[in-house]
């Protein structure tokens, strides 16, 4: 049944591409989409999460726990970075470009110096499954599920919890939140930490499938930024549909014309989507809702 194989094959690729985009973007959706910090060190948080996850997993810790360790490590690093550097830059988001670029240089080259040019990897768990004529990595289905779960979790966290309300208030008008009794420093620190932890989790989740090198962060950064920006102002109403739309275009173009077309197609789609929706996808959705 070649038709059936083709459909399943495409759905799998689509899910895989969308999950990658969403996971790349989820941490950045908070740090950039919400806090307005242009975090060029996002990739290094992912790298840090991946390194931690693999190191811990090699000690015999089960993978899910190891990923959690990766997330926590990246989250902690994020909170430290926030305290030392980012905190001083909230009034001037564009300067965060320079600072986080610097941080990214330090992190990747520091890792090279301390840990060498690469870290030996762990294998992908869960084996494979045959559907029709093709076989698929089961772990990839898990990634898709996790991506969906993370989006849902964030949506709930930021829209239906007290922390979420205070975080959004802090980010929108910080001095006003402060005068209403919100400990904005704590909120900033936690929010940044959550974003960094999500990046770490992404690194941990992809660690078993990728080569671990100090510069691996750059493989995520472009995708992360375009997904968040195409999503637009509202982090959660934006990132999910952006991941889906861009994932669809990328996997479609890849299937049709190969990886180059997928890559270029993704970027061209970004340009066109923003042109049609100058405030991103969530700009459209929010307008319709109002």
């Amino acid at each position, binding site marked *: 049944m070649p038709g059936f194989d083709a459909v399943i094959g495409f759905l799998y690729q689509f899910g895989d591409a969308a999950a990658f985009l969403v996971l790349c973007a989820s941490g950045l959706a908070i740090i950039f989409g919400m806090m307005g910090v242009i975090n060029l060190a996002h990739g290094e948080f992912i790298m840090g999460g991946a390194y931690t996850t693999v190191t811990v997993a090699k000690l015999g810790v089960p993978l899910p726990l190891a990923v959690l360790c990766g997330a926590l490590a990246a989250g902690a690093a994020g909170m430290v970075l926030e305290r030392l550097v980012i905190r001083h830059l909230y009034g001037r988001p564009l300067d965060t470009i320079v600072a986080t670029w610097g941080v990214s240089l330090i992190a990747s080259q520091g890792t090279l110096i301390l840990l060498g040019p690469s870290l030996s990897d762990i294998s992908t768990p869960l084996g494979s499954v045959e559907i029709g004529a093709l076989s698929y990595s089961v772990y990839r289905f898990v990634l898709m599920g996790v991506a969906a779960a993370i989006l849902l979790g964030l949506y709930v966290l930021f829209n239906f919890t007290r922390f979420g309300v205070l975080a959004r208030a802090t980010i*929108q008008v910080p001095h006003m939140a402060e005068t209403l*009794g919100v400990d904005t420093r704590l909120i900033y620190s936690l929010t940044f930490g959550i974003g960094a932890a999500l990046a770490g989790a992404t690194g941990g989740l992809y660690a078993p499938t990728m080569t671990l090198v100090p510069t691996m962060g750059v493989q995520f950064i472009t995708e992360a930024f375009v997904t968040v920006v195409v999503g637009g102002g509202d982090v959660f109403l934006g990132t999910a549909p952006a991941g889906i739309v861009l994932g669809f275009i990328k996997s479609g173009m890849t299937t049709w014309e190969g990886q180059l077309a997928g890559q270029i197609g993704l970027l061209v789609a970004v340009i066109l989507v923003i042109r049609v929706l100058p405030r991103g996808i969530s700009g459209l959705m929010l307008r319709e809702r109002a």
Partner: protein
Amino acid sequence: MAEDPLLTIAGLRAGYGGKPVLQGIDLAIPRGEITAVIGRNGVGKSTLIKAIIGLLPPSAGSIRFGGREIGALTAHARARLGLGYVPQGRDVFPRMSVEENLKVGMSIRGAPNPDYDAIYGYFPILRERRRQAAGTLSGGQQQQLAIGRVLVGGPSLVLLDEPSEGIQPSIVQDIARIGVDLNRRTGLTIVLVEQNIDMIRAMAQRCFVMDKGRVTAELTPAMLDDRDIVRRHLAV
């Protein structure tokens, strides 16, 4: 009252980037009173309010609240002691709904069960627009939200910076009435920066006049009854 001021300011100096604005303010705000601060544009009224709530670090002087020195505290720490602040220019959280804006206000006292209904009772339009993004409210609606947002936290002192600005006359009356009512029922202390003589006269029991970063006069309740005296001081 005057023997036990809720807020005492002494020798307060503050400014922006080395440019002095407040040049040594001495002020006592009696507990349970409504005090107005008046003065021309740019004399430093908003600056004073910002220094009290903690948005502007003082370069000298002291601020005591309920007997405690708060000059070194962060703004949120001051808020949690019971200071509420309604800024000039409203500063609502634009991409959050009206209700979410109110929710943030609860942080002032960390009140677990905020009484939204009381606020909605004062400002019915807010109930109607509960789910609207605050940034799309009209100017006057935003002002009402800014006031409601502070009241929901149950502060013991409210700093109002030109609350009547942009508000329709009938609601200005309502706000004055609400202020006086809260003051009487709950002993809420209010510091009011205003240009609207009638609002001052309707609310304030005492009035300080500011000029060039200093308090230059104090109007007693009796003087407040005479609108020409007030008018003259506003015109300094």
